[in-house]
């Protein structure tokens, strides 16, 4: 397909910096969605009764029921981890590109 000169599209990133940036964004979003929503769906699928008691609620961890610990304590921590990972990769990506750009200016 013919691209317009100023085409911006998350799913067809522009060449150069944006391609790598979008790759990092989609990876983080995958980690965000799969763990958050995936766990709740799994919790429901593995439940014995409508209240949701089942596989995950049988364990305890740090004296919490495992599922409660995962949602109440781990997920906010997971979001912080995701944000840190995003920043580290974007920092690295930006540095890589600014170096490349400086060389091309030489």
């Amino acid at each position, binding site marked *: 397909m013919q691209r317009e000169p100023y085409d911006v599209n998350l799913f067809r990133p522009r060449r150069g910096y944006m391609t790598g940036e979008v790759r990092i964004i989609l990876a*983080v979003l995958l980690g965000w969605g799969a763990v958050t929503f995936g766990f709740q769906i799994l919790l429901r699928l593995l439940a014995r009764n409508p209240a949701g008691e089942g596989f995950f609620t049988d364990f305890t961890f740090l004296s919490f029921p495992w599922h409660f610990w995962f*949602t109440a304590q781990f997920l906010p921590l997971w979001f912080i981890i995701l944000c*840190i990972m995003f*920043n580290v990769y*974007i920092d690295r990506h930006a540095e890589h590109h600014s170096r490349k750009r400086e060389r091309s200016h030489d």
Partner: protein
Amino acid sequence: MTDAGVNFIPLLIVAATLASFIVSGVRARSREASDYGFGGRYIGRLGGGAAIASNWMSAASFLGMGGLLYLQGYYALAYVIGWTGGYVLLLVLMASQIRRFGKYTAPDFVGDRYASPGARLVSAAISITISVIYCTAQFKGIGMLFAWLFGTSYPNGVILGAVVAVSYVIISGILGVARNQQLQYAVLIVSFILPLMLLAHRLGYFWALPQFGYGVAIDDLAREFGIDFTAPFASGSLFEWLALCFTLMVGTAGLPHVLSRFYVVPNNRDARWSLVWGLFFIALIYWSAPAYAVFARLLEARGGMVPPPYAAEKMADIIVIKTAVMGGLPSWMIGILAAGATSAAFFTVAGLLLTGAASLSHDIYYRLINPRASETSKMAIAKGAVVALAAVVLIIALHPPGLIAEITAVAFALAGNTIFPAFLLGIWWGRANRHGVITGMLTGVLITFATPLFGKFVPVVAELFPLTSSAFIGAPIVIGIMIAVSLLTPPPPEEVRRFLAEQVHGHMEAE
């Protein structure tokens, strides 16, 4: 509330705390001529994070979340997850790009990106509506706190609280106070966690890190009294949980007063890292809120006075304070807790009313009605708008339509159905145009209020778009409509598309 009489010591502490913010604000102002607020001075990544967190903390975080967890147990964790997970969306999809775009209020961004006064007007009206709904929740919190402090009824409390809050907003508007957000955050976090530590200590649980030590209390609750706090889907279905959680996430990433927070630090890299600190500071409170709820259940059960559901719902929004009272904490400690809650509500009210008023006077009056208006008349309009908005909020808050966190969630649903799609496509799809965004935002408004409007006649509407959780299905629909309408109409002006491609996405900022 059943407590009769004025709670003197807590009242004194609340008054002293508010006064100290005014004093510190005035002193800081005389020390530095430059105004605080957006990029007033460099405060570092940690300080930027504290600013983000204190800007975020409202009565919904401080009181409402504890109340809902108390009522609904595991189900209410959707609030915890929604309000933290939204920051991931905000960081990866919006933060850097909004900074590069250079417009950071919702009407400014939408108006400029879509080159349309009409789109600006719609987004301004939506932003003001969001402010009013959000403020209503704050007023409910303030009303319940004041009713408790003064030992009076809720209507008296909310009227009294509204008068004090509006005076505070006007004083801070005139003096420019209460912008020292690191100090604000310190007050909020200490006043939330210190009483919790003492409670845990009194009840004999691990007190040093009470937010991670209440697991045994959950166990005791189940073993001693047969109360299961953690049954995953006892209070709502999987769909309801996911819908609520997702709505709060996209709402977080679309809330006007949150979007404008990336300007406290001077460059993009620091802005991104302060968001991480901000999220950590927010999580500190959100890890703790469930502990209050569990302790409340436990103290009630041990005291042999488990209230019937109707009574429980009535006092849920002040359960955090009630827990401290039931736990027999000294009244100065309860005062500190009440002071934190009041501060959270007041800061949020101040921010929302001032933003809402600015939007009325700038985006609507100046841009659309009278472009030749003088600064003086703009100021007069803004001041009048603060009082007018507060009056509207007060009228709604006299008969609060729900729990604090539920009312707040409606504001998030509206933001998620309108502002979030407008920003998302505005940043990531150059072809999105004004026809698309206006149709999309209006559809979003309709979807948000679909349940009260049509829910009675068409039951399926109430099932698909619950009032607090409509963005789960709503936001994708709005995005779809924006894409479809944009493709059927001419593309936006070339200069906008070029700016987006070259400055927002092509440009390699020296990060």
